């Protein structure tokens, strides 16, 4: 197609037919704008289907009965597809967690801020380095140099408050949102 020739013809016919170019621009802009808006809404509706569905969100909280856990024992429960470490801490462990200078920590946080009741520590059992599950829940597990947890993947050591003390992990083990429903039952999530 001879483009120049065609353009000339178009310009000529625009002149003879007195094209309202302002109106043409308006129509072009509104049409394009509407098409883009519609496309964006359609795209979002489709992409949104990949977000958590209602049945997934419905499983977002779980209740745990703490009464069977003796002092010094641990329990692992599932919450949102992840392990939750619950440890009934001994007096020694609590003391160990509190006799630490906060300034010496990688991720500065007081033990008091990380628990609701001193004897119960509740943390998400996922190493903050690259997502492995640390050891230390079972009797006989390696608990690391600080008596808490030890992640075998890349060697991160956590203390009895679940705080990172040594190794590549950047943050303390996460404390999930939870509350005491009664003296011995907690609701996580």
């Amino acid at each position: 197609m001879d483009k120049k020739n065609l353009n000339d013809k178009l310009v000529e016919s625009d002149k003879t037919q007195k094209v309202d170019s302002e109106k043409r621009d308006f129509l072009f802009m509104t049409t394009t704008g509407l098409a883009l808006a519609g496309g964006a809404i359609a795209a979002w509706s489709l992409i949104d289907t990949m977000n958590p569905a209602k049945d997934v969100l419905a499983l977002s909280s779980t209740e745990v009965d703490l009464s069977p856990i003796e002092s010094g024992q641990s329990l692992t429960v599932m919450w949102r597809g992840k392990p939750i470490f619950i440890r009934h801490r001994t007096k020694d462990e609590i003391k160990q967690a509190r006799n630490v200078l906060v300034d010496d920590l990688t991720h500065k946080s007081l033990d008091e801020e990380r628990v609701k009741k001193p004897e119960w520590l509740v943390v998400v059992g996922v190493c903050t380095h690259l997502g492995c599950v640390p050891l230390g829940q079972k009797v006989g597990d390696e608990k690391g140099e600080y008596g808490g947890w030890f992640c075998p993947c890349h060697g991160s050591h956590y203390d009895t408050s679940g705080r990172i003390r040594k190794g590549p992990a950047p943050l303390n083990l996460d404390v999930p949102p939870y509350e005491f429903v009664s003296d011995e039952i907690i609701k996580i999530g």
Partner: protein
Amino acid sequence: MSSEKNELKGVTGWIDKRLPVFTFINHNLRDYPTPKNLSYFWNFGSLAGVTLVIMIVTGILLAMQYTANADLAFDSVERIMRDVNNGWLLRYIHMNGASMFFIVVYIHIFRGLYYGSFKAPREILWILGVLILLLMMATAFMGYVLPWGQMSFWGATVITNLFSAFPVIGDYIVTFLWGGFSVDNPTLTRFFVLHYLMPFLIVGVVGLHIVALHQFGSNNPLGIDVKSEGDTIPFHPYYTVKDYFGLGVFLIIFFGLVFFAPNFLGHPDNYIPADPLVTPAHIVPEWYFLPFYAILRAVPDKLMGVILMFAAVMVLFVLPWLDTHKTRSAQFRPYYKQFFWLFFINCLILGWVGSMPAEGLYVLISRLATGYYFLFFLVILPILSRYENTRTIPTSIAASVLSDKFGNEKTSTENI
């Protein structure tokens, strides 16, 4: 053309020199010379393309939520409807999209039939199109099985049993298709895999279809070849705008169905989970298969019925050699035009009797209609090709377009 290439500068030009994507787009979607007299019937190719994309996008997202297991499939579809964000929308678009795809493609095919788009030199273009239709039918059938409702299950049973009609090897084929002794979990899982695979094969054949199309360009309502530049206009902006407008109208109808009557074209029995012990009293395929289903039931012999049904599609492959009349467009073929419309109505009748129970008068009607279906292709077209005289054909597209305009518009614009 060569001056076009030189115009590309900067990054675009750098890329285009090494990988001529921009030249390609320019050549096929912008400057591409298109007959200036195309009617709205020429929108349906691009509509089919858009529908294919919609089906693939919604299909991929559905596959992320669907579970291809006989025990879980039905519930996973209900979960999509209730729990997945906009899952109902996703499924209803995909469900009704299948119907819209067939409507668009059937109109596209009838248009080709009416205006002789299958004739030389576009035979391979046509054959590729029929291949797409076959792939679509297989894909749609297997997709309908996936929700694992009653219609899914019994549709799968009946259609796969078609192959048992073949002597000696029939039973082995059916067992092979099922991967067992009845339609069951192995059948469902392989249907899911193939249903996911085949649309991508369709995309491939569509690519070839477009390559073949752009070799000689679009046919047109007059059915005569493009003779000079004056017969054509560039694809952009003229036909991009026309396609865009047609798409708007199409989407209004499509989403009218999706939002206001999403189950209008479906069958309520498919909301009952599959039960291998109970067949629904009146089973019918989806509407787009009804004409072929009618042909199957019209024949009292099992094997012949199956053969005729397959032949009804296969005959389209050889159409360019059945209708060898030199004139393409039905506009200039007075007899062909009448037989064509009769054929069109006949297809609607076949669809209608296909939805009715196979008894009484319906059987007779389906036999007559089946008879005319094949008579049209195998007898009427070859005879017309030989003996039909045509009306006067315009010398060129430009001449015809101008003579249409001379009567009213041209005089009036010149007076201004």
